[in-house]
């Protein structure tokens, strides 16, 4: 696999009043690579994602996607470049069915969103079903999103995020709210997708089993700063990381102990 750098982040910072939510964060991500961004609650992970997909503006620093600066771009522009995103707290269209959720993303991807006359529900049906099948919820396609279980919503989010055939996926806690077995399955699926389609994946995860099983590399964030970076095994052995995680006690799979 050729190592092409997809995302390059340098010195990214953001503060809220006195709180330095993200502090001079730098890293890069290659296509097909799974990079886990971990850290205790409030470390700045979500803020990082929001900075990357343009939801909030950085105070300083730069982000580059395939050589293009993302600074100053809006989420929708960044999406257009080929970046998909899932949210920590799922954000789907509650008044639509699962399939329509994906279709809406597909409609925009195919530039059909301003059509006034065609029936949206009949467009890109197969493509939507295929995406849903890929994340394993094709059989729920006709159900309204409002009635879905939380874990299934996470899958819908993934399907939506894949609709624009992204080359970078930003996944904020993709498995939160799922049963342990489901988590492992979803991450395995993500890893397969990433490798098969050469998608770079940046994800956060509180379940360390998942992280160490699937991440190619791990970055540890604490109070906005990167305190460690490397192969899962290296990070696990890092003393500072251990200290940071002592408080929450979740680094070594304490959750499942």
């Amino acid at each position, binding site marked *: 696999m050729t190592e092409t750098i997809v995302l390059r982040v340098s010195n990214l910072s953001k503060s809220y009043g006195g709180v330095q939510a993200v502090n001079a964060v730098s890293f890069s991500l290659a296509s097909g690579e799974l990079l886990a961004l971990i850290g205790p609650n409030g470390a700045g992970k979500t803020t990082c994602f929001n900075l990357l997909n343009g*939801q909030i503006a950085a105070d300083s620093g730069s982000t580059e996607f395939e050589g293009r600066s993302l600074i100053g771009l*809006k989420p929708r522009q960044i999406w257009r470049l080929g970046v998909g995103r899932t949210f920590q707290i799922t*954000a789907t*269209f509650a*008044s639509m069915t699962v399939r329509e959720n994906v279709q809406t993303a597909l409609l925009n991807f195919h530039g059909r969103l*301003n*059509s*006034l006359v065609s029936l*949206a529900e009949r467009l890109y049906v197969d493509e939507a079903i295929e995406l849903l099948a890929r994340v394993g919820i094709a059989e729920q396609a006709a159900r309204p999103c409002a009635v879905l279980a939380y874990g299934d919503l996470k899958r819908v989010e993934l399907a939506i995020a894949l609709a624009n055939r992204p080359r970078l996926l930003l996944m904020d806690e993709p498995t939160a709210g799922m049963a342990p077995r489901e988590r492992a399955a979803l991450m395995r699926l993500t890893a397969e997708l990433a490798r098969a389609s050469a998608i770079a994946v940046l994800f956060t995860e509180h379940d360390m089993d998942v992280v160490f099983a699937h991440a190619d590399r791990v970055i540890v964030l604490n109070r906005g700063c990167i305190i460690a970076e490397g192969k899962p095994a290296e990070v696990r052995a890092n003393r500072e990381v251990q200290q940071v995680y002592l408080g929450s006690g979740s680094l070594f799979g304490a959750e499942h102990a």
Partner: protein
Amino acid sequence: MQYAPSRLGRGNALPGTPQQKSIEPHLSLSAFLVQLLNGLASASSLFLVAAGLSIIFGVTRIVNFAHGSLYMLGTYIAYSLVKVFGGGMLGFWGGVLCAGIAVGLFGALVERLLLRRLYHAPELLQLLATFALVLIIRDFALWTWGAEDLLGPRAPGLGGAIDIAGRQFPEYDLLLIALGPLVLGLLWLLLTRTRWGTLVRAATEDREMAGALGVNQAWLFTSVFALGSFLAGLGGAIQIPREPAVLTMDLTILSDVFVVVVVGGMGSIPGAFLAAVIIGVLKAMCIGIGIGNVSALGIDFSFSKLTLVVEFIVMAVVLVIRPWGLLGRQQSIPRGAASVEPPLYLPPPALLKGLAAALLMLALLPLFSDRYTLVLLTDILVFALFAVSLHFIMGPAGMHSFGHAAYFGLGAYAAALLFKHAVPMEAALLLAPLVGGLGALVFGWFCVRLSGVYLAMLTLAFAQIAWSVVYQWDAFTGGSNGLVGIWPANWLASKTAFYYLALALCAGGVILLWRIVFSPFGYALRAGRDSPLRADAIGIDVRRQQWLGFALAGVLAGLAGAVHAFSKGSISPDTLSIPRSVDGLVMVLMGGIQTLTGAVAGAALFTWLQDSIARQTEFWRALLGGIILFLVLAFPQGIAGFIRERWDARKDAE
């Protein structure tokens, strides 16, 4: 004795006539000072009423249309009580205070018996209920106190005036000036120094959190409603030495109070105070300046005429600059069950068949109905399109509008003016909707930058500004009289022919909008409503989409207005007034905001009710209010929503 007028019917004489030269802005420093005091005195009572509304909204999120009615009740009750108690010190102030308390108790009752049942109903349904209350309370006041204006006595010991800057200034106004800050201070103490106040503030900031804290919500809501009503009643009661109790004062104050609350920031009491002062003082200044010569336009313009609209201009400016009012904070979006929109499916074949059959029936109707039925149906068709266009932005696009009549009216006026300027009727009918759309494009650009009640109030402000221009621009729009002689071309002169035209255009417009809801564009709108965050993250420019949706609704409202103009032969500023906007809201809510067909059902029912009830009983307003209340309580999901529910239930049973 005979006088020959050479030029009549215009308020302003020609520019440059000699007598006009002597009228110049004359606001000396002392005059300015006293006008400032006048403004502050007006602001006080406005603040009291607005503070009540603000607290109620902050905690319960109810847009209380009946707040002005509570104010009116305060004035009437105070008038009666003071009459009974006598005009002595104790009698007067006792009467005023008791009136406030009586209205507060009434408010608590309304909350417990009525609004309580609606907290889990779709958003804005409480608005419909409070609108019904307006109708009922108005007729109740007429029935109880009669039609004649009732002027109360002067306040004992404060009936005179004192000399300020060489002018006689009423003592009572001085008391009012002091009362505003006093009430503000008391409210501040209540909200910051008591446990109850802490709960109110918590609930204002985050309703769910307050619920989680184990606050007895039911009790809190009732007490808040009582306090808010008490303030409204008191605000009305203290007016009795200054103005008569009049049956129209409910709506007169309502728009002012909404403006004050929104300008100040919904839920912010100091904001309400600030806004009341700004608006009170600005009005007094407009009056104080009197006539200035706006030479750019070459006409004399009386600043006093600005009082018609100045508060709405202030509101528009404030909201454009500060989307949450002067001292307001971004509203926490309620995440309750009520805010999740139900799924929207393509109509099942049975429903489509039903609609086609209904359409066919409408098309065949002229064969066996009388002429008046066609006239009434033409009105219903027009209002159905108007209501559907409003529903289009309120439902799928999630933007509540309180000023949708602006686009209806713009369409109507455009049609009339084009026609008056020798454009053929057919062409006028086609061009007019574009004017409605253009208006919506301009106003919408600002509106889509806001959300929730602020957005709704900005639409209202724009509608009022448009109304005041139409109302005052005699030379072009015919001013308050409007325009007459807008009759359709000969081939459409018969009621039947015009009915077919209305059916074609209005039903066509409705079907088009419904179709668009299911088009990709409609999906994008719903996406932006359901989750702006997700919509943005899949590349949808939510604002742009909303803006275009707004404009599209404006086009179709304009079409409805144009058809309306030619069906009536005349138009007046009423076509874009607040009541027309409220009618649209009522239609949408009555039919059920969560169903597509609801707006049509609501328009038909409301128009038919108005037509038939007004004919039958003297107190038709109250009857209409009663029917709306009944509908609200029995079918919170709206008529169409109810039918769908029943349909689904039957299908499930099979």
